[in-house]
């Protein structure tokens, strides 16, 4: 059972454009939603994260939009740059009990053309 569904699988954007990646979750107990960026040969690194008490969080060119009722959240990359070309993973976890693990989406390979 896939608890976090991510789309699209791949995305090609022109330099300066907006990249949008979407995720949907099933477990209503999730209360932490991070996005990770992974470059080839590297481990994933946290890009930005949001908790369900806010609907939007912005850090520089990166914005998370969160819709609790729809159980969806998305990553927007404004003014996309070739250096943003990487694989992006959404994830979710919850604070209840002793389960601290992250559940990851399947990933989106972003290519930003110069």
């Amino acid at each position, binding site marked *: 059972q896939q608890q976090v569904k991510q789309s699209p699988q791949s995305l090609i954007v022109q330099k300066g454009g907006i990249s949008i990646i979407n995720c949907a979750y099933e477990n209503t107990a999730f209360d932490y939603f991070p996005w*990770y960026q992974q470059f080839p040969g590297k*481990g994933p690194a946290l890009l930005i994260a949001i908790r369900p008490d806010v609907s939007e969080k912005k850090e520089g060119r990166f914005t998370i939009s969160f819709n609790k009722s729809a159980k969806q959240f998305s990553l927007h990359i404004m003014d996309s740059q070739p250096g943003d070309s990487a694989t992006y993973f959404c994830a979710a976890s919850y604070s209840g009990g002793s389960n601290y693990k992250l559940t990851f989406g399947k990933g989106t390979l972003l290519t930003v053309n110069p």
Partner: protein
Amino acid sequence: SAVISQKPSRDICQRGTSLTIQCQVDSQVTMMFWYRQQPGQSLTLIATANQGSEATYESGFVIDKFPISRPNLTFSTLTVSNMSPEDSSIYLCSVRFAVNTEAFFGQGTRLTVV
């Protein structure tokens, strides 16, 4: 933050043999995890490494195949036992300091079984 050192970074192994991967963290951490990532795919949690007790394995992963040790709060090992070509993958160590906080990842161990 946490700096994670994983060794080896890559290895080519013969089928039927075992490989032990080390994960060293530069500070004491509450939670350590081991993931598997097929090239171009998402991260699949193998187990949570518990300090001083047996690891907690996810569905589909068993201790006989992936024994894990965690002797202290900064170090863990994952052994891939009796390897087959299907075990060829990237293995990642991850840590979190507290629930619903950033997860840090090592650079990964790229394993090829021939």
